[in-house]
């Protein structure tokens, strides 16, 4: 029996269906398909379709060691998957709070292939089982509270009527401290929305609500209790939140409902969220009909905007938007409701929908990145980006010196080699040692391979975001080939392919129009890495290193400072890196060179694929002591807000993606 079987007795028809399901496995990958590619595993080749949302997936695929925040998000995503569902892990250790994986494979292609075959067998046999168990964890539990639609500050634990206006209190879920990550399962807010907050999944076939521990009252709106047939109206997942050590959320945190909740946001309180979408911000804003809106998403509940407060995250402030307090329930036009809000760039003033989450498992953004947007119609009014919760930080690096290199390499699974080289160089600078030429060349090769692979991975995610499937597939395939390349000769072949890819991308019709002018950085921004080089500034750590200069390196610089120029910079850097590897001849990272002298203070800077990272060591008594680590993504994190303001949603996402943020490298 697979861990997420549907509760039913297997009969002939169900066995047939189970076999069909075994052939049609669709995987939802946590943190994202790029994680598998970085390990050299080709998921498409083993026959797994990658699904954008947990709703359309039947397998939850966990890749690599995940921090707690991502595991919780994965748990919520798992709860959102319709049963029968299974869990497959690749190179991941313990995955609680999720159930035991059905198949655990190590990150090698053959093992994954056999693992998937095994999974298919398990599915065919065990998709339906009378002993299916429910999946219930804290992460998806919520509690109900009752709030007045007109006065969001009135919150009670029991149903009743509002002391201020006498209206009946409306039920709503309250999250306990939510983890923003957890809320966003699936990464796309959508799941939230639909997720049924407040109820637990019930067994198929369990027609009564007895399966629910506790929160039965949460079933206040149990929409689809389709008893009678096995389909269960599952009101999805509750998100709930788990307590984050003391964050008391009183009544809010509906992180979960983000999306939806918006809508829910108070009807009474200026709701109608019209979210105009549709596009229109075009010069001729004349056409009002072009502005479709996001109507009040939740024609459902009344929750106030303030509730969108994510505790635990340093406060997402609801900006200038207090909710309108209507003394009377008289007719209020949009003009009155949006008084006081900054005017939107497309001229159409809409109610703000706050806290729409995109991530941490959003398909078009790097896995683990949580982007919380405040939408004004279809325009983004504000944005906030967060990295992976629970990831190791510089504080975790303290310890014996010998382990520093490995620990630093684990800091960012997207660019382990760069951090390894950084640690080695810092140690060497502290010991006053200079590596010899062959070591230096080998390091260059390794570093450049990672750079090219990282850029190809970025290209693949970017292609997915753009809806450019050919690019997604081709760049992903090249990345895997590069990760698996054994020596510099194979790299030479890949260099030719990368050149072809680059030329083909540049000739793609409509791509320039899609990207030009999108993702412009605000004034005074000081980015790093390819982002700064795309703005015409030739800042590259490598230009100051002798090794690179002997190989004939010159920084790649483009003008434009927008998504298009960042794309061209990275395409050119891919070719350049592959070329450098061929010249360097080797691609390994040899062991550190020491001379037995005691360590003194050392520092080093390395150009990681995303920008310059600096490490400063101040050793004490043979242990590492104080460490200062400057990461490029931490700096870029602050740029997100200015970059997306007043942009249309699609353009905002493209702009954020063009920065190539590493959610692992971002400060909390």
């Amino acid at each position: 029996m697979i861990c997420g079987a549907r509760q039913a007795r297997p009969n002939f028809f169900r066995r047939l269906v189970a076999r069909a399901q075994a052939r049609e496995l669709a995987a939802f990958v946590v943190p994202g398909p790029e994680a598998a590619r970085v390990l050299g595993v080709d998921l498409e080749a083993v026959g797994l379709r990658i699904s954008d949302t947990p709703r359309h997936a039947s397998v939850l695929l966990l890749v690599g060691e995940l921090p707690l925040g991502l595991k919780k998000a994965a748990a919520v995503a798992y709860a959102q998957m319709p049963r029968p569902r299974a869990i497959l892990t690749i190179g991941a250790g313990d995955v609680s709070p999720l159930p035991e994986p059905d198949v655990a494979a190590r990150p090698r292609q053959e093992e994954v292939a056999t693992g998937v075959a095994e999974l298919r067998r398990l599915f065919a046999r065990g998709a339906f089982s009378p002993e299916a168990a429910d999946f219930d964890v804290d992460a998806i539990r919520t509690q109900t509270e009752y709030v007045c639609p007109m006065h969001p500050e009135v919150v009670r634990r029991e149903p009743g009527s509002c002391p201020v206006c006498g209206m009946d209190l409306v039920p709503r879920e309250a999250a306990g401290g939510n983890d923003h990550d957890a809320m966003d399962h699936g990464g796309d807010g959508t799941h939230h929305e639909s997720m049924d907050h407040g109820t637990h999944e019930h067994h198929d076939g369990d027609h009564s609500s007895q399966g629910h521990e506790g929160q039965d009252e949460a079933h206040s709106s149990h929409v689809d209790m389709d008893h009678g047939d096995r389909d269960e109206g599952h009101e999805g997942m509750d998100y709930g939140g788990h307590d984050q050590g003391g964050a008391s959320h009183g009544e809010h945190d509906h992180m979960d409902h983000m999306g939806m909740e918006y809508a829910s946001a108070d009807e009474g309180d200026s709701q109608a969220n019209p979210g105009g979408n549709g596009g229109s911000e075009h010069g001729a804003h004349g056409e009002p009909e072009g502005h479709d809106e996001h109507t009040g998403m939740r024609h459902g509940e009344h929750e106030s905007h303030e509730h969108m407060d994510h505790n635990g995250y340093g406060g997402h402030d609801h900006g200038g938007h207090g909710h309108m307090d209507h003394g009377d329930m008289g007719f209020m036009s949009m003009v009155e409701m949006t008084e006081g809000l900054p005017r939107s760039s497309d001229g159409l003033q809409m109610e703000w929908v706050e806290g729409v989450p995109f991530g941490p498992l959003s398909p078009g953004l790097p896995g683990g990145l949580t982007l919380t947007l405040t939408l004004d119609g279809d325009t983004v009014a504000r944005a906030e980006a967060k990295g992976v919760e629970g990831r190791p930080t510089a504080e975790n690096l303290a310890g014996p010196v010998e382990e520093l290199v490995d620990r630093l390499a684990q800091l960012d699974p997207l660019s382990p080699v760069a951090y390894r080289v950084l640690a080695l160089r810092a140690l060497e600078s502290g010991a006053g040692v200079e590596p010899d030429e062959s070591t230096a060349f080998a390091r260059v090769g390794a570093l450049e391979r990672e750079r090219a692979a990282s850029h190809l991975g970025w290209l693949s995610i970017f292609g997915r975001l753009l809806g450019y499937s050919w690019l997604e597939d081709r760049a992903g395939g090249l990345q895997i080939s590069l990760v698996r390349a054994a020596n510099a000769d194979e790299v030479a072949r890949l260099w030719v392919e990368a050149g072809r890819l680059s030329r083909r991308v540049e000739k793609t019709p409509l791509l320039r129009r899609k990207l030009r002018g999108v993702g412009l950085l605000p004034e005074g921004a000081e980015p790093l890495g390819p982002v700064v080089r795309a703005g015409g500034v030739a800042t590259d750590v490598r230009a100051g290193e002798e090794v690179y200069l002997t190989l004939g390196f010159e920084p790649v610089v483009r003008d434009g400072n927008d998504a298009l120029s960042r794309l061209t910079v990275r395409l050119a850097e891919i070719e350049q890196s592959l070329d450098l590897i061929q010249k360097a001849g080797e691609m390994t990272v040899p062991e550190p060179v020491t001379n037995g002298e005691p360590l003194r203070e050392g520092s080093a800077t390395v150009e990681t694929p995303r920008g310059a990272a600096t490490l400063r060591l101040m050793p004490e008594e043979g242990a590492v002591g104080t460490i200062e680590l400057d990461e490029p993504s931490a700096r870029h994190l602050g740029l997100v807000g200015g970059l997306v303001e007043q942009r249309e949603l699609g353009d905002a996402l493209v702009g954020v993606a063009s920065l190539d943020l590493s959610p692992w490298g971002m400060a909390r």
Partner: protein
Amino acid sequence: MSALLAVLMLLVGAYLVAVLEGWVSTGRLRPAGPITSGLALLGRESVVPRQPDRIFFEVAPPLLLVAALLAAAVLPLSPTLIFADLATGALFVNAALAYVMVAVVMAGWGPDGTYAMVGGFRFLGQLIAYSMLIVMPITAVAMRAESLFTTEVVESQAALPNAIYQPVGFVVFFVAAMAVAFLPPLDLPTAPGELAGGIMAEYTGWRLAVMRLARAVLVVTLAAAISVFYLGGWLGPVLPPWAWSAIKTLLVAAAMLLVGRYVPRLRETHVLEWGWKIGIPLALLNIFYVGVLLLVV
């Protein structure tokens, strides 16, 4: 009898389009793909969002299917193989396609979720862009045929298919058809990668199966419409008429599906801008051009 046969051929066409779509997106040809997918979907739980607008949530997938079927009902596979040969056939196609939009908006509003909502309303924006562009080329086609009967439209192309006679209209209609079926690069409502499935995201189980079926039928219907209006329907040497219809329809469907792979998604602003600033003038020019050809030449 022939009516039933027409429906059957339509479903076969939808099946083939589903196979084609699978082939285009994964690179593997799986002839039994749609059956396995359908079975698999039927066996999965059906999850309903917590507070949907129930009527819209339930009605949207069947309505999408019905709209596509109605549009297909007036398109001929051969001179005798047509479900209903209405005298206003060409106009009826457009009327039925308008309900595609209604269904998509319902699917966007119903589930009460941000992504679905954004998807639904983006489609409305797309509608503003394409709605004129669907009707005007049909007008020019009807002008040449001097009738709204779809069978007569095909017969009017005996000398020269409309794709050559009025190429501008052909291109405009082709693009507009892709917009109606929200195929990439005009897939703003579903936007995988941005909206994680958009309007389709909240549907699971059998409802999703109905949505996907409806989408496949819609693609077939539009491909059939293009082949009837512009490629001469069943006309062609050697092979029997229905075979020509089938071949042309499938070729058009394959073309529509392939284009999306190689072009990034259009920005909403561009869809609207180009639809109105470029598309409509071109469509008007097309009508004028056809008028001149008919009256003068």
